[in-house]
C-alpha cells in the first residue's frame, strides 16, 4: 500500500518541520482526514506537554503514533476532538477546525477508543453503551437499533448485546469499546494503546477487526510490533514534538532513533524480518 506520508522516508529528528509539512501537504489528491499544526499545550499546573506538533493523515491511512511514556501522546489525543483546547496551534478534521463552533460535528467525526475499556463502558448493557453515541446525536428507533447491531457485528460482539459490560472478558470489553465508537461512523478512529493488557489471542482478534475496517486509523501506542503489523506509516512523538515520520519498518530499523527516544523493540524482534500484513 502506498502511503502518502511515507514516500519521503524522512527520519532526521532535526528536520521534522519540513518532513511533516511534506506529509500533510503532499497527499497527491488524497483528501486529508486530520491535520495538526503548531499544537502546543500546557496544563494549568504549569506542566507543558506539547511543544508544537505538526502532522497530517490522509483519508484511509492507518498511522501509528509512537512514543515513550510521558511523551504527550494522550494529551495530543485529547486535542483531536477538542476535549483539551486553549493552547497554541490548530487541529483540523476533514476540513473542519476543532473549536467550540463545530464541536458536536467534530466529536462525531473523531472516534476515540480510550486505553481502559472500563472508562469507556458506563451503561448497564452493551447495547445501551453502543447506542449512547448515536442517541446523543439524536438518532432513535429502528435506525438506532440497526446502527448498534451493525457496529457490534463489525467487532463480532452482536451476541453479547444484552449483557452487562463488566461481565465480559477484557478483550471483549475492548472490542465493545471499539464498537461504541464505530456506531458513530467516525471519519477517523483514534485508538489509545489498543493492545495493552490483551492476551495474544485477543490481540490478534483486535488486529483482524482493525484491518477489516474501512476507516482512517490513528493508533497511539508503544507496542512497536503491533504498530508494524497494522500501520504502514508511523510518527514518533517525543518531548512534545514529532521527531520522525516515515514508513514503520524504516523507523523501527533505525536503532539510533529508537534508542534516543526510549523506544525499545521486544527481545529478539527484528523489524526487517517481518513482512507487512497490510
Amino acid at each position, binding site marked *: 500500500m502506498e502511503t502518502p506520508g511515507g514516500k519521503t522516508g524522512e527520519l532526521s529528528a*532535526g528536520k521534522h*518541520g519540513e518532513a511533516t509539512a511534506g506529509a500533510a501537504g503532499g497527499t497527491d489528491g488524497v483528501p486529508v482526514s486530520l491535520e495538526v499544526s*503548531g499544537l*502546543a*499545550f*500546557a*496544563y*494549568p*499546573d*504549569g506542566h*507543558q506537554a506539547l*511543544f*508544537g506538533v505538526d502532522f497530517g493523515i490522509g483519508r484511509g491511512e492507518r498511522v501509528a503514533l509512537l512514543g515513550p511514556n510521558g511523551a504527550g501522546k494522550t494529551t495530543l489525543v485529547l486535542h483531536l476532538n477538542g*476535549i483539551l483546547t*486553549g*493552547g*497554541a496551534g490548530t487541529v483540523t478534521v476533514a476540513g473542519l477546525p476543532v473549536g*467550540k463552533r463545530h*464541536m*458536536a460535528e467534530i466529536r462525531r467525526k473523531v472516534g476515540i477508543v480510550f486505553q481502559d475499556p472500563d472508562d469507556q463502558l458506563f451503561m448497564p448493557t452493551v447495547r445501551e453503551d453502543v447506542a449512547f453515541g448515536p442517541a446523543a446525536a439524536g438518532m432513535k428507533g429502528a435506525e438506532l437499533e440497526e446502527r448498534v447491531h451493525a457496529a457490534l457485528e463489525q467487532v463480532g460482539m452482536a451476541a453479547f448485546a444484552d449483557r452487562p459490560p463488566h461481565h465480559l472478558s477484557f478483550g471483549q470489553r475492548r472490542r465493545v469499546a471499539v464498537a461504541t465508537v464505530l456506531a458513530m461512523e467516525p471519519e477517523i478512529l483514534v485508538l489509545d494503546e489498543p493492545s495493552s493488557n490483551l492476551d495474544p489471542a485477543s490481540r490478534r482478534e483486535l488486529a483482524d477487526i482493525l484491518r477489516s475496517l474501512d476507516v482512517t486509523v490513528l493508533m497511539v501506542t508503544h507496542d512497536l510490533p503491533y504498530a508494524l503489523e497494522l500501520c504502514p506509516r508511523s510518527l514518533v512523538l517525543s*518531548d*512534545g*514534538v514529532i521527531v520522525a515520520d516515515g514508513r514503520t519498518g524504516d523507523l523501527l530499523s533505525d536503532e539510533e532513533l529508537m534508542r534516543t527516544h526510549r523506544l525499545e523493540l521486544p527481545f529478539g524482534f527484528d523489524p526487517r524480518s517481518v513482512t507487512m500484513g497490510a
Partner: protein
Amino acid sequence: MHVPDGFINAPVSAATGLVAAGAIAVSLRGARRELDERTAPLAGLVAAFIFAVQMLNFPVAAGTSGHLLGGALAAILVGPYTGVLCVSVVLLMQGILFADGGLTALGVNITDMAIVTTVVSYALFRGLVKVLPRKRRSVTVASFVAALLSVPAAAVAFTLIYAVGGTTDVAVSKVATAMVGVHVLIGIGEAVITALTVGAVIAVRPDLVYGARGLQQRLKLRVGGELVDAPAVAVPVAARSSHRKVWITGLVTSLVLAGFVSFYASSNPDGLEKVAKDKGIDTRTGKHATGDSPLAGYGVRDISDARVSGGLAGVIGVGVTVVAGTGVFWTVRRRRTSDTSPASVPEGV
C-alpha cells in the same frame, strides 16, 4: 441541621421554597458561565463529596457530634452558582433517597444549608483572596476562614427561619444558643477539612479550583530544539480594581468585629433571659450523640445563654451584611464578566 417535615410551618416552608427556587434559577443561569464540560463532572464530584462528608459525623464537645455542611468547599471549588446547585442536589437526593430532611422542608434546608453557606463563604473567600498576597497559600487561608464562618451563618439562618415559622414552642433564644454554639465548633472542623481539601487540590490540580483561576503560564514552542514563546492567547483576566479591594477589606473587618467583639461584649444577662433560665429545667444531661439535630447544644450547657444570644445580634448583623454585600459584589462581578466574555456559554447546558 436537616429539617424534617412538619418542623417549620407551611407558609414559611412555602416561602423558603420560593426563595430556594429563585436562588436555584439564578444559579442555573450563573452556572452556565462557571461550568465548562470539564468542570461539570467536578460539580458532580463535589456533590458526592459533600454527600459523603455530611454523613461523616464527628465529635464536637461534651458527647455531641455534628456534620459538615460543605457549602464553602463547593463555592470555592466550582464557583458560587454551581456551589448552590451542588449542595441543593445533595439535599434533594438525601431527601428522596435517605429521607434525611423532609421533602416539604426542602426549601428550608436549601435556603440555610445551600444558599447561606455558599453565599457567605464565597463572599468572604473572594474578599480575602483580593486582600491577601497573590499566592496559593492565600487561597488555602481564605478557604479556611470562609468555611469557618459559613457554618455559624447557616445556624443563624436556621434560627431566623425557626423564629418566623417554627411549629414548636421552644424559645428562640434557646434554639439560637444551641445552634450557634454547636455550629461555631462544627465550623472549625469544616474549616480544617475545607482548607486541607482545597490545599490538596490546588497543589496537584490547580485547574480544578474555581477560586484560583487565572494563574496560567505562557506556552513555549520547541522549534529546532530551542524554546520560544508561543503567540499569546487572549485570556480574560479580571482586573483588580483598588476601590473594590478597599471595600472588601472594610467588609471583612466589620464582619470580624461584629461577629467576635459583640460576642464577648454582652456578658450581662438581661431580665427575660434570666427568668427563662431560672424557670427552665436543667438540661445538663447531655449524653445523646446527635449533634445533627437542632437540640444538639442543649446537652452542652445552659450557662453562656446570655452572652451568646447577646452576641447573636452581632452575628445576625454579619449575616445580613454579608448577604447585602454579596449582592453588590455580584452585580459588580456580573457586569465585568459580561463585558469580557459574552460568548462563553458551554454547549453542555
